[in-house]
């Protein structure tokens, strides 16, 4: 008897005009699992990620989150359900301070709209100050509490990534999806990020990582899905995936894969 998966991608298929970008991709993520999604350039990782996060709908196939079908639900419905994401190109709100950026992760918990807010005017102040405390704690977790009042321009790329993660964590997601979190980071920053993800994993956070950096993903993930040319070519533990002929072929070339065996 296995635990039901938290995310289930079933027969995902995406066509752009005449080009089949994603062909029949399926995988599952169990609660507490850290799943990696890798593949060479143009393998369809980003398209798959976009479909799971609701940025673009699949041509066919289904996406299930916690027993609910979310295939064609728009992007804004993901966060209240318990899915949070970060961005490869940092997309923080430039006009807001670091703390306010993290607070935006809590936005769906606030009353929605002017009248709803006015009706709950009494409790709003309390909610705001509690939210701020929580946001500060998240900034402490990523080690940026002393930057709370800084503008976004004052951050380095690595720091901005961490703020993005803190912002995603603010909504208390059950599934955290990270889009190439290590891209553009230096070694120290990448190690720091790896440690942080390890702590999150220890706390039981389920994660989906799209990544280029193979070293990073081999250390961070329990299981890895490998894609090539829009097709899933492997799905298993890092060790299994490393031995997979198709994976070696996709990454290094067919001949290397043959030589290995």
């Amino acid at each position, binding site marked *: 008897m296995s635990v039901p998966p938290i995310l289930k991608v079933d027969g995902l298929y995406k066509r752009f005009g005449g080009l089949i970008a994603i062909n029949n991709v399926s995988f599952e993520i169990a609660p507490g699992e850290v799943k990696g999604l890798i593949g060479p350039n143009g393998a369809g990782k980003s398209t798959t990620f976009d479909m799971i*996060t609701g*940025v673009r709908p699949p041509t066919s196939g289904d996406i299930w989150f916690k027993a609910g079908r979310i295939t064609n639900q*728009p*992007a*804004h*419905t*993901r*966060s*209240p359900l318990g899915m*949070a*994401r970060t*961005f490869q190109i940092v*997309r*923080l*709100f*430039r*006009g*807001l*301070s*670091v*703390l*306010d950026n993290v*607070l*935006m*992760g809590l*936005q*769906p918990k*606030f009353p*929605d*709209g*002017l009248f709803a*807010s*006015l009706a709950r005017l009494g409790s*709003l102040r309390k909610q*705001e*100050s509690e939210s*701020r*405390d929580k946001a*500060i*704690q998240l*900034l*402490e977790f990523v080690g940026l*509490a*002393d930057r*709370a*009042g*800084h*503008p976004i321009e004052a951050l380095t790329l690595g720091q901005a990534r961490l703020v993005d993660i803190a*912002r995603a964590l603010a*909504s208390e997601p059950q599934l955290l999806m990270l889009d190439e979190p290590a891209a553009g980071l230096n070694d120290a920053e990448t190690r720091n990020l790896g440690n942080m993800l390890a702590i999150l994993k220890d706390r039981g956070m389920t994660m989906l990582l799209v990544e280029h950096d193979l070293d990073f993903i081999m250390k961070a993930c329990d299981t890895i899905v490998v894609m090539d040319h829009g097709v899933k070519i492997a799905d298993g533990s890092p060790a299994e995936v490393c031995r997979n002929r198709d994976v070696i072929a996709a990454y290094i070339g067919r001949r290397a894969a043959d030589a290995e065996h």
Partner: protein
Amino acid sequence: MSKPTLPAAPTPTILPVFVFLAIGALIPLVLESGFYIRLAMLVWTYAVLCMGFNLLYGFAGQISLGQPAFYSLGAYAYAMLQIKLGWSPAVALGGSLAFVAVVSLLIGLPLLRLRTHYLAMATLAFMLVENGVANRWIDFTGGQSGVEVPALKWAGEEIGRTGIYYTVLGLAAVVLLLHDFLIRSHLGRGMQAIRDDETAAQALGVRVDLYKLRVLVLSSVMAAIAGICFGITSLRVDPSLSEFHVLVSLLTIVVMGGLGTRFGPIIGSVIVVALPQVLTGFGRFETAIYGACILVFLIFLPHGLSGLVERKFQWRADRATADAKRRKQVLKEEVS
């Protein structure tokens, strides 16, 4: 060793709002001349119009050059509901705001899909349509000469200038409080997030399209309130309410006052209403100087006069820093 006092989080206080309103309430007591009271009413009218635009463009980042159309529609609806349907002023007020809300909803649903320049041009087209109809549908709108707005009455008698002034001030106070509440609350944060990055806001669960539509409707209703203020002050509505010069005044006010600031619309309105009084000495140069003022502010004071005092959004940052310090203090105390 004395226990260090916790730094107070500088919650942006509502105090300045009350200061502005108190000054507003004192004006009729200080200035006896009807001319100055009329100018003060014009200041409040423009401030209300511009607060709506400030929320829409300064905070949510959605430009609408059609605000004068809603300004004019509000005034016309307020007058027509009284004249043609015989509604009482209070009911006509509610009715005209509801009417403008519906119109802006119908305009916003399709147009808010457009972005930046296209949105600007499309809303400008809407203003020209509204103005064209107001000018041409003479049987209904009275064409160029417009329609008369019934004077406000209290117990059967027309209320005097001071009474009208306090009515305008009351309407302006409601808008000012709403404007300030929105900016300081999580809703203001949400609007700024949409302005900065719609995709990221969406990923965080913000219903971007709905938010934009709501802000557009709210800002249009604020424009309509301004139109009604104009109507009860001047007792006449005509097509000049949605002419180009209103748009120019609006942009001048928000640019000089400071776009996306808390008090820019009020400060800008004071200046734009006072400026022509000072500029009358310049006679024919007035228009050119108006343009030069906008330009100088855009280039040298992009956050406007209000920005000099407020430092755009600085209070948000200060508050965040103070939050962090307080939390650090708490942690330190827990450890010791």
